[in-house]
């Protein structure tokens, strides 16, 4: 498992290339890339704040849970912090499993965690000023799908 939280852009394709199954047991690699979305062409920038060390450790706990729950063979999480412009990649998750169902579920689970519970604080700046963003009801409902608390 590898968890990276750092500022600056990244290349999702390059990260996917780093997810190399180390054994013949892997039959699936599922990856997801999240982008900064611009609402209706508005000039919007995001600022992502994180607590160095703490944020990575908390994400790693969720990652370990995902590995145990879905039997993942490997997991990579890369999350950008700092200033992010519209359409730029913010987050990359790749889950490796023996079978596709578990790989999809592992990646989906991690994204639901990252979108609602991970120790980030997100501020949006645009023509109408600045605001700190809260998880949406959809984000919370997505996390609730897993029907288990994020702890053993």
């Amino acid at each position, binding site marked *: 498992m590898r968890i990276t939280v750092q500022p600056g852009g990244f290349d999702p394709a390059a990260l996917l290339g780093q997810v190399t199954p180390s054994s013949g047991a892997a039959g699936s690699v599922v990856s997801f890339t999240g982008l900064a979305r611009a609402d209706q062409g508005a000039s919007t920038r995001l600022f992502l704040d994180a*607590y160095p*060390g703490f944020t990575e450790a908390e994400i790693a706990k969720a990652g370990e849970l995902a590995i145990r729950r879905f039997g993942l063979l490997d997991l990579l999480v890369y999350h950008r912090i700092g200033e992010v412009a519209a359409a730029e990649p913010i*987050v990359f998750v790749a889950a490796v499993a023996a079978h596709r169902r578990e790989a999809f579920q592992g990646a989906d689970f991690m994204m639901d*965690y990252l*979108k609602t*519970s991970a120790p*980030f604080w997100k*501020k949006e700046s645009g023509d109408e000023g600045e605001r*700190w963003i809260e*998880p949406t009801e959809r984000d919370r409902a997505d996390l609730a799908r897993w029907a288990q608390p994020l702890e053993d």
Partner: protein
Amino acid sequence: MRVLLFGRLADQAGWREREAPALESVEAAACFAADGDEALLAALTASTTQVAVDQVLWRSGELPPQAAEIAFLPPMSGG
């Protein structure tokens, strides 16, 4: 010890990190960080604000004597 603020708390205070003398309680740390700003103190002590001591979520009001840093964490938005 270091006192750290994140997210909207850092915006409200106008700073992210300050050095404090040894503090015995979370309340004392909040008072130090608020420095007379009642609105900031309310935000720091709100039930929705979590506290981490030495990068571990902390639920006690008392601080361990050798704590190196305390962080006040507003509600997490996710990434």
